[in-house]
């Protein structure tokens, strides 16, 4: 492999790296763009309710909105703390 080829290959990856990064980013930004505007509020209120029973932090709960051709789903995920950490 000549030196020139080496540069060709390493540079070839720069455009494809750009493409890969953009595809991930754009997909992510598009899905968050389509989220209903009540989502952050919903997440906040859900957290308050759950905290009445279990001591969880902000990061323990995630609300995901997903959309495919024929339906929209709301997925709620709560990671419960260790048994010992539970509030009375």
């Amino acid at each position, binding site marked *: 492999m000549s030196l020139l080829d080496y540069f060709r290959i390493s540079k*070839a990856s720069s*455009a494809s790296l*750009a493409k890969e990064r*953009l*595809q991930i980013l754009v997909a992510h930004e598009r899905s968050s763009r389509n989220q209903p505007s009540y989502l952050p509020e919903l997440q906040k209120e859900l957290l308050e309710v759950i905290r009445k029973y279990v001591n969880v932090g902000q990061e323990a709960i995630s609300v995901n909105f997903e959309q495919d051709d024929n339906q929209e789903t709301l997925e709620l995920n709560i990671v419960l703390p260790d048994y010992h950490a539970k509030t009375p």
Partner: protein
Amino acid sequence: MARIIVVTSGKGGVGKTTTSAAIAMGLAKKGHKTAVIDFDVGLRNLDLIMGCERRVVYDFVNVINGEASLNQALIRDKNCNLLYILPASQTRDKDALSQEGVGKILEDLSKDFKYIVCDSPAGIEKGAHLAMYFADDAFVVTNPEVSSVRDSDRMLGILASKSRRAEQNQEPIREYLLLSRYSPDRVKLGEMLSVDDVQEILSLHLLGVIPESKSVLNASNSGIPVILDEKSDAGQAYVDIVARYLGEDKPHRFIDGKKGLFAKLFGGR
């Protein structure tokens, strides 16, 4: 009724004003009465690119404020008598443009013109918002570069949700990709995103590729839209773009770079 075209991008410096000047001239040259409006309030530049900077008396904001009539503010192009320019104001007042004011001007222009080209400022602030709000068609100018592609996608989101057509549940704005400052040689070396890459990411209808070209600077130096430089690659690219927009079937050019001997022998242009 006029068709309103916004030339937009999100990111700055990608070639919106160059494109606005070129396509407005192209449409007018094809026999359609066309107005081109500079929405970049505070940073007027379209007048320079069109070579009419010394003939500006009144501007967009003067008309909105009722200080001048549309006819007083519109500047007839020196190269084409079907083309008129409405320059931006140099005011620093960010709120100089109002939605009602802009809507009224576009409505008035619609009675008399076939196409209205709106040269959007960069960003997603008020000027950019108003430039795209009333649009029927959007020319999304993108450079083959990560931040430009991302910002274009952002703009697409805004066109689809914040425009008049979106708000009134009408048929959505027709969106077209204009990939500008393209260097086929760098694409071949893997240094630059290709047309296919960008199209795949944005899933937009490609109206044309404008090559990176010295002729663009020459054109702006002399204040003549590059589309009138018929020998230049960028000029021809814009001629094709206007033709395609008007429904002509033109194969894409400037994607593969300089034609080698092989291509010359086998029927390239």
